[in-house]
């Protein structure tokens, strides 16, 4: 497969970019932040986004979706990365949609997938329990309780958790076995605390104290969610890598324009060779990330055997590149880059959150070493 977008994918990229830069540019996030919006996103705008089919990418056609793949989801995420738009795309339209499509019962799919496609539901994905991403260390526990389950534990860094209509919770049901459960936020014993994060996107901490859950809330087979979870997390990581790529691209464009326009010592600062070389190296890093991210997204769709390795490489590389882009972005902008009024700080904050999300560069480099046998 060629490492370039095909024609349809190119059109999708252009249309979603145009949609977002027109309707939900960075100023949109800024407004939500400054008004301390209770929801954290604009539901109406999000529905318009869904009207374009963008939320339906990973929803199977049978459930009213587009039945497309990771590459297309990555295209959307890349565009969202450029504009920092705070929609529940990753949580709901990627992680939840793919979990339901892979492991959901017909009843679960029929109930929820069309709503995802229509942006009629927010589903939050609750995996992490500590400050660093460590899916192998999940300790939240679901114990058999009559025909159903009883859930105890805590989750953190749950995107869109405080506005979710449903949670998908990964819980330990035996020493080696995990189970994915659909949990109603309004159930007794559920505590939700909105966490206001540096990037002004939504997140929450959850506590479950003896929450009773029906047998029909299990996604797929009890005790055997490991494989589905791995696959869905890898999809999510590849999509986040695409989002970091879009973010790095946008920051680099801002910075490059500034290098050409800002004058010091009677020259454009972009004439200074030290800055030129740093900009050139950053450009190359971004191009490397672009190739690797597309390779990883394609592998998720077409080559599952190689997907885990490529996704780990892509997430690690995208983290490093986006980090370099925002660091250089702020530094090259000088004082103005330090002001809240200017957008680059928002990019730096978002980049840091996306790095942490589902594993930072160190986490994924460690996985690469393990997968490559050393």
């Amino acid at each position: 497969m060629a490492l370039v977008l095909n024609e349809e994918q190119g059109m999708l990229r252009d249309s979603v970019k145009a949609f977002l830069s027109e309707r939900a540019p960075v100023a949109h996030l800024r407004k939500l932040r400054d008004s301390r919006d209770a929801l954290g996103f604009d539901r109406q705008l999000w529905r318009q986004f869904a009207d374009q089919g963008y939320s339906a990418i990973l929803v199977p056609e049978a459930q009213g979706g587009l039945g497309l793949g990771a590459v297309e989801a990555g295209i959307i995420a890349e565009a969202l990365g450029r504009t920092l738009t705070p929609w529940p795309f990753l949580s709901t339209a990627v992680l939840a949609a793919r979990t339901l499509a892979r492991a959901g019962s017909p009843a679960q799919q029929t109930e929820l997938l069309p709503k995802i496609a229509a942006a009629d539901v927010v589903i939050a994905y609750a995996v992490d329990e500590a400050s660093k991403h460590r899916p192998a260390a999940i300790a939240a526990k679901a114990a058999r309780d009559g025909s159903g389950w009883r859930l105890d534990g805590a989750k953190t860094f749950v995107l869109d958790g405080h506005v979710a209509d449903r949670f998908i919770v990964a819980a330990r049901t035996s020493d080696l076995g995990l189970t994915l459960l659909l949990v109603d936020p309004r159930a007794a014993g559920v505590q939700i605390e909105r966490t206001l994060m540096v990037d002004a996107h939504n997140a929450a901490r959850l506590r479950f104290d003896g929450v009773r859950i029906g047998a029909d809330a299990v996604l797929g087979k009890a005790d055997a969610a490991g494989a589905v979870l791995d696959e869905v997390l890898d999809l999510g990581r590849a999509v986040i890598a695409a989002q970091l790529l879009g973010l790095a691209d946008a920051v680099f464009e801002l910075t490059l324009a500034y290098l050409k326009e800002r004058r010091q010592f009677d020259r454009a600062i972009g004439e200074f060779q030290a800055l030129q070389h740093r900009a050139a190296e950053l450009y190359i890093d971004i191009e490397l990330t672009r190739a690797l991210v597309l390779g990883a997204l394609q592998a998720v769709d077409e080559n599952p055997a190689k997907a885990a390795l490529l996704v780990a490489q892509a997430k690690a590389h995208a983290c490093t590149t986006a980090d370099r882009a925002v660091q250089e972005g702020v530094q090259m902008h000088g004082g103005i880059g330090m002001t809240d009024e200017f957008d680059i700080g928002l990019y730096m904050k978002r980049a840091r959150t996306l790095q942490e999300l589902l594993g930072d560069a160190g986490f994924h480099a460690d996985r690469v070493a393990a997968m490559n046998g050393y």
Partner: protein
Amino acid sequence: MSELETFRRETRAWLEANCPAQMRQPVASESDACWGGRHFKFQSEAQRRWLQIMGERGWTVPAWPKAYGGGGLSKEEAAVLNAEMRALGCRPPLVSFGIWMLGPALLAHGTEEQKLEHLPKIARGEIRWCQGYSEPNAGSDLASLATKAEVHDDHLIINGQKIWTSYADEADWIFCLVRTSTAKKHTGISFILFDMESPGVSTRPIVLISGKSPFCETFFDDVRVPRRNVVGELNAGWTIAKYLLTHEREMIGGIGERSNVKPLGEFAADAVGRDASGRLSEASLRAQIARFEIDEAAFRLLLQASGDRARRGEGNPAMSSALKFYGAELNKRRWELMISAAGADGLEWEGERSNEGTLARTWLRSKGNSIEGGTSEIQLNVVAKRILGLPGV
């Protein structure tokens, strides 16, 4: 007993007798500082009193001449006073840009009249000063500044804008660089003083990516300033500006050295945990922190060695640029590693658990270290040219 010893004994006795107990508590936060000025709200009666009695003795500026409100102490006596204050835990009675920056410049370049007018008020904390250097289009390239002062017979009319003016919204007077001639970049600049309550002066606080800041934008709209407020010759302010910039760079040099922060390795191990053999459980983070601690140790020793060399008269003045550069980059690395160790918890921005996002805000604020007080790029240029002797472009 030597005279210096006598001075030490008397000083200690006086401090013990006169420094209020409250002013001998360790400083808890930046807001404990006493900045003085017309509108300053003292935190306590003790703070007010401490400033007053120290000001009366001239011990807010112990080495300045008595005629200008100083203590008239010798260098050695001033050092003794300093040491005794530290020994007793006395807080500084006054912190002030007037003391740190304007004072030395006036002492070196001011007229007798200017010294008599301004220095005593600085010493007593009656007037709070701010510094008007940077402009939106004159950051690193300060000589490009454009704020214009039209020279008339006995006054100047100032129009333009300054940025990064620390505490401009709380200051009484400003010392300011303005362009009085466009003939030449460096020589058309004058150093001028004026009251912030003059008609036409306004300020606007700057919010940083880390949140609130002491910085302001400051606007001048036909501000009328008496000609006698120019320090030094007209169009010769660049000399004074350079003098102050060097001064400032040296003050910032120690930025990478923060002793009040928990050691990084310990912080990280607490945050991410340890493996069975006690090692920080993220191996790659562990290695990065070790490399950081090595570089930090080297930096501390280089600061010490530079001081020792300077005391021997072997220092290179441009070394302060090297230290400023490295200290800034090191501090940025520290906070990158801190935020990395803290993970998602470190990214909280509000709320009690995160102490209103202190960690994230400190991390973001550190990005300014390599920009303020001369960017890292400027420092490297200085090292390349003035220490390495590489040819200019």
